[in-house]
């Protein structure tokens, strides 16, 4: 059976070149980077080289990068680390309503446990935050604003540099979760004008278990994982050396190949989107039509439910994602779809395709062949579908 994997936002295989680079660090080059003898110093040097490569990818300096175990850890370190290190400044945090759980729940932690106030900044129907609204909400006691760069569910890219500028002007720290963008579009911390930025390995072809936080030098940051002097005292624990090597190599490859990859996935995505919109009626393309991740195509299809759709596609060898309530462990519709105002019954028919460099035009065509038939079949069961009423 043909297999077409288009759920790269959920997971991406490690690139061959990346794995090869990592392999020696499991067994032969296994030394502890904190050790003072030659094999420790060697590994320490390797880590610093990777820090440089990751910094290069996003226009930062090596000393502004701290390695973490995931995007979620980077987000928690940014939110909790910055808020705790600036407790005296105030007790107000602003996040958008479409943030990833790791940002939302880190902010809510302060609300529930520590007497902070959290303002949830709404978005419009495209998922865009309104800079003017942000400017109105920032106040004296605001410690941190966290607004994601690219949204993983609807693909929308936020106007970060403008948002960050507002905060910079008012002396408020600005963090962006760039987990969905780094590896998919050019990201430059100077252009974005942010104080902190989170990223993770898999979108770059690095393994699970490694991520990083950029923090502008002089940004005060309380460690999330207290411990020894690793990561300039910002994160305790023995370093995940193979993971760091993988992230470094993947960053280096990405820097070189990004323009080509972006073009490739955008072409495929455009073909997929127009093909789907042509073939399926009563369908909504969610998120911003232009300001979006190049390989991200998200829809809501009326009268059917996303989990059923996904599993029928799975039977046809197609892998995608959904924000439907039934597909979530909490049986709740994606808060992102709610935030952009999709009616609940329409949001149930959510489906998301995320493409990467290894996807091909025949794969897109395979989806264009299978998806309409699957939708038609599910609609033929549905009491909501017009022909059945």
């Amino acid at each position, binding site marked *: 059976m043909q297999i077409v994997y288009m759920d790269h936002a959920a997971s991406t295989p490690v690139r061959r070149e990346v794995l090869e680079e990592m392999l020696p660090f499991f067994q032969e080059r296994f030394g502890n980077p904190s050790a003072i003898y030659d094999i420790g110093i060697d590994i320490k040097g390797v880590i610093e080289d990777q820090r440089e490569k990751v910094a290069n990818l996003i226009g930062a300096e090596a000393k502004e990068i701290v390695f973490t175990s995931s995007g979620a850890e980077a987000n928690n370190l940014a939110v909790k680390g910055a808020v705790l290190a600036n407790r005296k400044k105030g007790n107000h945090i602003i996040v958008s309503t479409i943030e990833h759980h790791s940002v939302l729940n880190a902010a809510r932690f302060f609300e529930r446990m520590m007497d902070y106030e959290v303002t949830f900044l709404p978005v419009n129907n495209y998922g865009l935050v309104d800079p003017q609204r942000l400017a109105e909400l920032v106040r004296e006691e605001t410690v941190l604003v966290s607004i994601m760069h690219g949204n993983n569910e609807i693909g929308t890219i936020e106007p970060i540099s403008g948002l960050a500028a507002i905060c910079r002007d008012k002396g408020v720290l600005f963090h962006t979760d760039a987990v969905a963008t780094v590896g998919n579009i050019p990201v430059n911390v100077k252009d974005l004008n942010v104080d902190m930025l989170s990223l993770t390995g898999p979108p770059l072809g690095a393994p699970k278990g490694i991520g990083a936080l950029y923090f502008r030098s002089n940004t005060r940051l309380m460690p999330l994982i207290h411990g020894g002097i690793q990561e300039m005292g910002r994160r305790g624990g023995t370093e995940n050396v193979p993971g760091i090597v993988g992230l470094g190599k993947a960053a280096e490859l990405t820097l070189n190949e990004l323009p080509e990859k972006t073009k490739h996935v955008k072409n495929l995505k455009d073909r997929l989107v127009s093909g789907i919109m042509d073939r399926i009626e009563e369908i909504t393309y969610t998120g911003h039509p232009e300001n979006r991740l190049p390989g991200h195509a998200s829809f809501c299809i009326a*009268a*059917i*439910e996303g*989990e*059923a759709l996904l*599993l*029928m596609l799975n*039977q046809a060898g197609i892998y995608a994602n959904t924000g*439907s*309530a*039934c*597909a979530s*462990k909490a*049986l709740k*519709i994606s808060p992102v779809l709610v935030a952009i105002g999709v009616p*609940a*019954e329409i949001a*149930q028919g959510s489906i998301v395709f995320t493409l990467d460099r290894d996807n091909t035009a025949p794969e897109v065509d395979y989806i264009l062949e299978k998806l309409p038939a699957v939708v038609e079949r599910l609609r*033929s*069961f*549905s*009491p*909501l579908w017009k022909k*059945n009423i």
Partner: protein
Amino acid sequence: MYSEKVMDHFMNPRNVGTLEDADGIGEVGNPVCGDMMTFYIKVRDDKIDDIKFNTFGCAAAIAVSSMVSEMAKGKTLKDARAITKDSVAAALEGLPKQKMHCSNLGAEALTKAIENYEKKNSA
């Protein structure tokens, strides 16, 4: 996640459709919650002579509907009413915990269709 039986009933649901001249119709659920089922029955000699359904919902909801329709078909109304969420789930060789409410919906929709028939015929 799902048993083979669930996947079979999901991929090839039995008795899908509507009955134009149904003797009873039962509808439960709500698209806002992600699940909605409509059952149609034809009754003859106090037995379920024919049964059809339409379901909007997840794989479990569709498989449950199919299984309920299969279990009910040919049964007396009394026996059909005895179909419970647990007997449906058991017939499907189990359902994930968070999907048990789907099997409840199926039994409920069938019961509603029977009640609808009985109400019409007790008048």
